[in-house]
């Protein structure tokens, strides 16, 4: 079980966080309050069904004006800035978490669970995946990820990380404005401010499990217009999803077969994402009955 909060341990590295990402468990110790505070932006405590096969320990220690980052005891970075050190740390965490599951295909997609299967919201950056995922979450849907899904042997799972909606998109998400002031904020790679949200923010369970993919939506931005869904051929969907995939780190070449099998087993829809309220309705309708227009 992941620990649910930062713990105060013996000096000098008196802040400790332990959390799981897929098959890897991470432990971070630091003596820096600034670092400990910033860990709130990224450390997640989703329940996961992967067996832990790798464990990595990080220590972040202040030394004069620098911060020293050690990975399993070996010094890997010395940084002056908290921001730069955290960027290095999170990059390493991501690398190590993927290294523990080298056979997995990575798909750029938000994901949720409906009737025991996973559904995916696939699309280019800025297609609206995160905003729609948050809107679905707020509407009561069981959303589990907003960015990445991993796939292997016919089963897919959300990559465990918080959802990072842009601050400006909160204007589109009624009901979230009230909780926004209490949410951690982080600057994204595009320089915009983002919030850190997850199902636990909404007092809901966050369970990430490997499941078959039942439905795939490919998001086409139609901002300012109406939201509608239309059926897609499997070959078109396979092409579109492939563009949003990263091959397994192991280099196995049959990953496209995994992808084709996933597409063949799913109901597939193109979703022109316009007004958000109707987008939620259309997604729900598709999951229940098939493609409709909203």
């Amino acid at each position, binding site marked *: 079980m992941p620990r649910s909060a930062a713990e105060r341990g013996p000096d000098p590295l008196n802040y400790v966080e332990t959390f799981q990402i897929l098959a890897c468990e991470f432990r971070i110790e630091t003596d820096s309050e600034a670092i400990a505070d910033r860990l709130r932006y990224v450390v997640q405590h989703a329940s996961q069904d992967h067996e832990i096969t790798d464990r990595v320990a990080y220590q972040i220690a202040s030394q004069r004006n620098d911060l020293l980052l050690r990975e399993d005891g070996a010094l890997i970075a010395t940084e002056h800035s908290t921001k730069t050190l955290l960027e290095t740390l999170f990059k390493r965490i991501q690398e190590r978490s993927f290294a523990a599951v080298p056979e997995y295909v990575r798909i750029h997609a938000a994901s949720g669970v409906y009737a025991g299967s996973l559904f995916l919201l696939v699309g280019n950056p800025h297609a609206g995946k995160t905003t729609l995922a948050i809107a679905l979450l707020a509407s009561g849907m069981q959303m589990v990820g907003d960015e990445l899904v991993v796939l292997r042997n016919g089963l897919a799972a959300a990559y465990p990380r918080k959802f990072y909606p842009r601050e400006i998109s909160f204007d589109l998400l009624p009901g979230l404005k009230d909780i926004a002031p209490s949410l951690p904020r982080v600057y994204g790679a595009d320089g915009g401010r983002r919030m850190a949200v997850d199902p636990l923010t909404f007092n809901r369970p966050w369970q990430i499990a490997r499941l078959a993919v039942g439905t795939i939506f490919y998001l086409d931005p139609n901002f300012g217009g109406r939201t509608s869904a239309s059926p897609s*051929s*499997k*070959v078109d969907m*396979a*092409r579109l999803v*492939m563009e949003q995939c990263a091959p397994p780190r192991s280099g196995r*070449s*049959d990953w*496209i*077969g995994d*992808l*084709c099998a996933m*597409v*063949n087993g799913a109901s597939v829809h193109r979703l022109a994402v316009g007004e958000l309220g109707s987008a939620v309705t259309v997604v729900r309708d598709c999951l229940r009955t098939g493609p409709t227009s909203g």
Partner: protein
Amino acid sequence: MSNTSQIENPAWRPTRVSDIEINEVADGYIVYQQAADRVHYLNHTAAILLELCNGKSAFSELPQLLREAFDLSSPPAAEVRECLDQLLREGLIR
């Protein structure tokens, strides 16, 4: 449903079905069966084998053709049989 008993006939000349769309990708082919709305991934070997299923070559000749194509030390008879069996079952050849 495909008749996979053809695989027992050395004189059988496998032929690619006509209603498929072939898309070349880095590691092989993605083949689309429009009628069934299904996509299949074929690795390089399966893709070449599908190309060789032109109705001109007998099943028994295909291992030798593959041996020459890949400069192999011996004809990959078992692999060809397994691959053709799968292509038949998926309805990509007849």
